[in-house]
């Protein structure tokens, strides 16, 4: 009898452990509150839902080698991983996953993300900040004629560029705004130190003066503008210019030690919109590597700005370099785009700012975030993206629950209808089976996915198989005239090998699926394995114990209801 006591005690202990594993508990996690995410204590059932059930976004990123091979991909990816993790940690998501998979891929999982575009941009943005002095030697003008020749020789015409899509120019008012506000005092100095903008000449006079002075296919498109090294290109000519600049022969002909970069804003003059093109010193006086902090700020005069702080070494370098370049223009270049190019009035130390014109506060927040997190060492491209709306997830849960409830009801009906009391025992075992399976899932921190729910529903049908096997064996033994006790013993003994064999083959399949499947399918594999383990235990051990209890409480010779 003591054997029986231990059995009951073990089952009871497992029930307690399962209930404890599944009991809603207080956890500290990030939760949205008033638009931002804060760490907070939440009470919830410790069952993790997959992205397909709670909604969210799954991203697989790879090193983008379309613009040149990357030497040490694995190392580069490790560094990128750290940066992406920093960024995602600051991004408002409750339980993000950022991990390296294999040698060449980063997986980012963002549960509950509602703006996938923003999330993708945040992860992909290089955030490479550079400060470069604009060219004052008119280097481009000197090589313009040669480039004209190259363009003619290579047959690069405006027509071939017309096929590529034209970028829609931004609204005029924004451009004007950035023209008069954006360039002024773009870098705020330490306290009193200020930077003033270059004298603003109106675009009209400038363009009028220059029209007709150049006639080459390349130089025709360029009009020198306010700042030394700054040119205007009509927005309609932008694709042509991009095509010219992308040509390898043109690139080779560009002045040495200089780079050509597009500006971020659009200038509207005389009803026409223009894009800025800057010629800059290749060597940056400083990069964003020295940046320690960045904050968004909204200013009625300057629009949206991001202020940043450099570390000691950065501040020292910045100070010496700016001291050397007083009265020069310093372009603030983010991801190869010139954000602004103010004149350096006096040497600058620790603090600076990036003017974003009329960009919304969110964009400034995101820029500050990526600057703080550091720049990506390599460009990343999206290899795979899955995004599931929260409503679809909830719908899947609801439907899964309905299907599960119906499946259980039908199975209960069949089992009790056919096996009577023994069927009732099997149903109790089935309930314990569900409990144990969920507890195992919670205990191993497994993720419940929609295929996982399907697997659970399916295993409800399959789980009773072990019981059916045993019951049929017991019936056979009873038919042979054995006593109830012996029949039960024999039944369990004979059914055991078949139960073990079938379970092992299913577990093997599940393990292989787990190894080779993606997120949702892994969820299926996990529930399948957990389900089979639980079903083996409940059928062999729990049902047997139920019988033993029944035997110990009924008079010998009473027929078994099976």
């Amino acid at each position, binding site marked *: 009898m003591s054997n029986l006591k231990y059995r009951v005690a073990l089952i009871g202990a497992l029930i307690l452990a399962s209930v404890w594993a599944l009991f809603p508990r207080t956890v500290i996690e990030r939760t949205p509150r008033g638009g931002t995410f804060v760490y907070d204590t939440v009470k919830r059932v410790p069952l993790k839902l997959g992205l397909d059930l709670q909604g969210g976004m799954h991203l697989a990123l790879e090193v983008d080698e379309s613009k040149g091979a990357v030497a040490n991909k694995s190392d580069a990816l490790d560094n990128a991983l750290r940066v992406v993790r920093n960024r995602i940690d600051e991004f408002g998501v409750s339980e993000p996953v950022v991990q390296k998979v294999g040698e060449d891929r980063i997986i980012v999982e963002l549960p509950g993300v509602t703006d996938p575009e923003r999330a993708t941009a945040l992860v992909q943005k290089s955030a490479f900040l550079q400060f470069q002095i604009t060219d004052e030697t008119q280097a481009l003008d000197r090589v313009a004629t040669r480039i004209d020749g190259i363009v003619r020789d290579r047959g690069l015409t405006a027509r071939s560029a017309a096929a590529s899509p034209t970028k829609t120019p931004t609204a005029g008012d924004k451009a004007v705004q950035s023209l008069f506000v954006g360039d002024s005092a773009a870098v705020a100095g330490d306290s009193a130190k200020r930077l003033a903008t270059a004298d603003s000449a109106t675009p009209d006079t400038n363009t009028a003066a220059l029209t007709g002075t150049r006639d080459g296919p390349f130089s025709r498109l360029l009009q020198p503008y306010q700042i030394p090294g700054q040119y205007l290109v009509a927005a309609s000519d932008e694709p042509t210019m991009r095509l010219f600049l992308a040509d390898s022969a043109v690139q080779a002909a560009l002045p040495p030690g200089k780079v050509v970069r597009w500006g971020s804003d659009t200038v509207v003059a005389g009803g026409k919109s223009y894009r800025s093109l800057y010629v800059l010193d290749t060597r940056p006086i400083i990069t964003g590597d020295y940046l320690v902090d960045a904050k968004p700020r909204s200013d009625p005069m300057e629009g949206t700005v991001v202020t940043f702080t450099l570390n000691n070494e950065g501040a020292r370098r910045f100070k010496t370099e700016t001291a050397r370049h007083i009265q020069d223009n310093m372009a603030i270049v983010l991801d190869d785009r010139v954000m602004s190019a103010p004149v350096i009035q006096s040497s600058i130390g620790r603090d600076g700012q990036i003017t974003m014109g009329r960009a919304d506060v969110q964009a400034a927040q995101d820029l500050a975030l990526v600057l703080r997190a550091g720049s990506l060492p390599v460009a990343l491209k999206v290899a795979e993206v899955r995004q599931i709306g929260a409503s679809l997830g909830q719908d899947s849960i609801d439907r899964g629950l309905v299907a599960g409830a119906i499946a259980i009801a039908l*199975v209960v009906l069949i089992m009790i209808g056919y096996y009577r009391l023994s069927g009732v025992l099997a149903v109790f075992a089935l309930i314990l089976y569900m409990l144990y399976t969920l507890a195992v899932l919670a205990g191993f921190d497994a993720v419940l996915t929609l295929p996982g*729910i399907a697997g659970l*529903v399916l295993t409800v049908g*399959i789980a009773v198989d072990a019981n059916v096997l045993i019951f049929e064996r017991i019936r056979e033994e009873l038919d042979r005239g054995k006593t109830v006790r012996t029949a039960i013993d024999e039944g369990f003994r004979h059914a055991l090998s078949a139960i073990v064999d079938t379970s092992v*083959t299913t577990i093997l399949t599940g393990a292989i699926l787990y*190894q080779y499947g993606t997120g949702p399918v892994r969820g*299926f594999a996990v529930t399948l394995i957990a389900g089979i383990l639980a079903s083996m235990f409940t059928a062999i051990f729990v049902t047997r114990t139920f019988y033993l209890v029944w035997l110990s409480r009924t008079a010998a010779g009473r027929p078994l209801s099976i």
Partner: protein
Amino acid sequence: MLRILHNTSYDFIKWWRVAALTTVAFILIGFASFAVTGGVNYSIEFTGGTLMQLLFKQPPDVAVMRSTLDQAGIHGAEIQQFGSPREFTIRAQDRANVESQGRGAEGVARRIDSQLRERFGADAFTVVRSEAVGPKVGSELRRGAIIAMILSSLATLIYLALRFEWRFGLAAVLSSAHDVAVTIAFIKLMNLEVSLMVVAGILTLLGYSLNDTIIIFDRVREDLKKYRGEPFRTTLNRAINETLPRSVLTHATTLAATLALLLFAGEVIRPFAWVMAFGVVVATFSSIYVAGPLLLWIERKWPRKESAAVGAAQRAADRAGRDGRPRSPRSAAASTMPSSR
């Protein structure tokens, strides 16, 4: 005590020709349709591509949707109603689109989104689900699925070889191969989309069908010891009959669960549920009519050494008449004598 199919003695094996004919015909029809209508529908997980599920405020004009996408250069996108008339899936998995996704998988989805918003209004629909798989990931998943199939067959084969002797293992594996063929024919005829989940379904089905086979073989193994000298065919038939109530009950409960999934669990899981529902039928059929006769054939071709006599007896019995009536152990043993070496 409620009992179904108790103490039966049907001669299942007698019908093996009919069964073989049926299943071969089904497989042939399925595979012939490959020649006529092309291969199975692979999901974007395997081909690479973009899938978007959109929920519109008003039922949209599908022709307008199509022309809008065509104008945007997204050709050959497949637009399908998904559940309600306001909900649609758009699939772009032709080669050009997939290749363009090599540069960044999100591009096509972004274009579809912006083009449709331009045409139907900025808040005419919400994106319920959006999946974009680049060509590289697609080929990796394809390879993964194939490896999973092969490994899982190998693992079961090895396990069966360890637990049973090789004859049983071979019969079970051949029967599993049959299950795969039949299921592929079924998927083709039903025009189900083959996703990773459906592959998982096929593997689960294989496991489930194998369960049935194992349970019958387990009984055969047991009965071989119990009724020594009996023709193998009789033992096999007996084992199938003995396990019949279990088979019926288990299939009933599994079918109940599968039907619940099929009818109530929604569109996303439906292809998987179809495969599993078919699996219940396949498991019943193949464990009795494929694995059984195969085992019989293997036993005849390579008789056991210690029971060579039994094999000979069986051949003699089969020559004597194919009525398939179960013989008593004694008569089988008696007929063994003259032909034994």
